[in-house]
């Protein structure tokens, strides 16, 4: 199934929109993603055998064909792309040159890239590894843990990549565990009692690495879906929880400082807003914003869907048929863009001209 993908430049002063030309093509889109950065500069779009990097004016920076099937791709704010394919990861420079490849005889769990470091979590042999590489010289830091019972691994790193959050599900007892890393130094491990089941895509780190948002759910008869913010010193706050059902996966937007956190879950039209204080780790509930229709449910436990501009003024959420740009100050939907794709995340980057 092919999708027509047309990036749009939207003018927030008059809400006019411009299709970006000449880049428009039918692609078997897998994902649209952007760097985790205070001022993200690129959009990365990829399909099975090609990835495309756009800058914040919608211009094609790189269109790269590859000879293998792309599983997951991530981009940093220098336009470097980390591609995960099977048991191999490859790092490409902004001009498409291959800088590094790594292959293991095991299973890669997740990858993340910052401007200076990238991270890989994988199982091989008897061990589970968390490895970081410095991009400038490929110096490596690595932790190895016994691999038994570690599932549903998720990494999210800061803009530089200096800090990384590892979330994983530990089989018994059913703990949801998060670990903050820096250069292979484990800053802390935290098991949160009976809050089960992280999943790839369940966390998002503040660009400076001071905080991370992560989600999961209580299992079984006490099923609850929840979101938490964790600080680099291990202090955490549960900011939201609700009865878990199949439609309770989130679309989340955060500003660059995480003082504004907003989310909507599938089968709901209500954007829930929190004003978060990183100093006290407390939050205040703000008035919700209502969409004209219910939001689309993101995949299980992920919070990768949804987006917000770094200044917190605008949020992107999607329904099954539309992308909405919401003015978070006025609390109203300002733009609705019809889409023909379901089951895919969308991202936006600010453009200052």
């Amino acid at each position, binding site marked *: 199934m092919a999708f027509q993908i047309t990036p749009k430049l939207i003018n927030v002063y008059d809400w006019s929109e411009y299709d970006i030309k000449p880049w428009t093509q039918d692609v078997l889109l897998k994902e649209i993603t952007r760097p985790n950065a205070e001022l993200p500069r690129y959009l990365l779009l990829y399909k099975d055998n090609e990835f495309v990097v756009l800058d914040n004016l919608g211009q094609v920076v790189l269109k790269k064909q590859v000879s293998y099937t792309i599983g997951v791709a991530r981009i940093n704010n220098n336009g470097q792309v980390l591609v995960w394919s099977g*048991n*191999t990861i490859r790092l490409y420079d902004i001009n498409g*040159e*291959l*800088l*590094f*490849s*790594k*292959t*293991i*005889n*095991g299973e890669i769990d997740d990858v993340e890239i910052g401007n200076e470091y990238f991270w890989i979590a994988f199982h*091989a*042999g*008897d*061990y589970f590894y968390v490895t970081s590489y410095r991009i400038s010289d*490929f110096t490596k830091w690595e*932790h*190895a*843990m*016994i691999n038994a019972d570690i599932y549903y691994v998720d990494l999210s790193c800061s803009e530089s990549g200096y800090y990384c959050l590892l979330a994983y599900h*530990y089989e018994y007892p059913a*703990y949801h*565990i998060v670990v903050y890393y820096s250069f292979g130094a*484990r800053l*802390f*491990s*935290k*098991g*949160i*009692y*009976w809050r089960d089941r992280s999943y790839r895509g369940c966390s998002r780190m503040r660009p400076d690495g001071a905080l991370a948002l992560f989600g999961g759910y209580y299992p*079984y*008869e*006490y099923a609850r879906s929840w979101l938490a913010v964790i600080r680099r010193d291990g202090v955490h706050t549960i900011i939201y929880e609700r009865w878990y059902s199949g439609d309770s996966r989130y679309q989340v937007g955060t500003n660059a400082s995480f003082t504004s956190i907003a989310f909507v879950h599938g089968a709901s039209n209500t954007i829930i807003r929190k004003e978060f204080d990183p100093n006290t780790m407390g939050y205040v509930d703000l008035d919700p914003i209502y969409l004209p229709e219910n939001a689309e449910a993101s995949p299980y436990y992920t919070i990768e869907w949804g987006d917000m501009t770094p200044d917190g003024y605008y949020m992107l959420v999607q329904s099954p048929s539309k992308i909405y740009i919401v003015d978070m100050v006025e609390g109203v939907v300002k733009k609705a863009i019809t889409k023909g794709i379901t089951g895919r995340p969308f991202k936006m980057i600010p453009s200052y001209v």
Partner: protein
Amino acid sequence: MIKMSEEEEILKIEEMKRGPDYLYIAENINEDIEADKIIEIIKDKSITLEYIPQIKVIFLWTSKELSEDEYKQLKEKYGFEKVE
């Protein structure tokens, strides 16, 4: 019965001590490596292959020392040398 609680605890998941890693290097490699073919040669070990095109070097890390037969094959096909 599942206990509902906000209780938290720091889990003590000890990091396991790995045995020493063994490193082998092949130089003057001009193309992306056929990693899976290299991995097929090596048995019963954790393997990491790192390739840096700019310096044309492959680093092969293994959790156990290569057998004589494995080392011979990798040396003949790709020029791997053990780093002592």
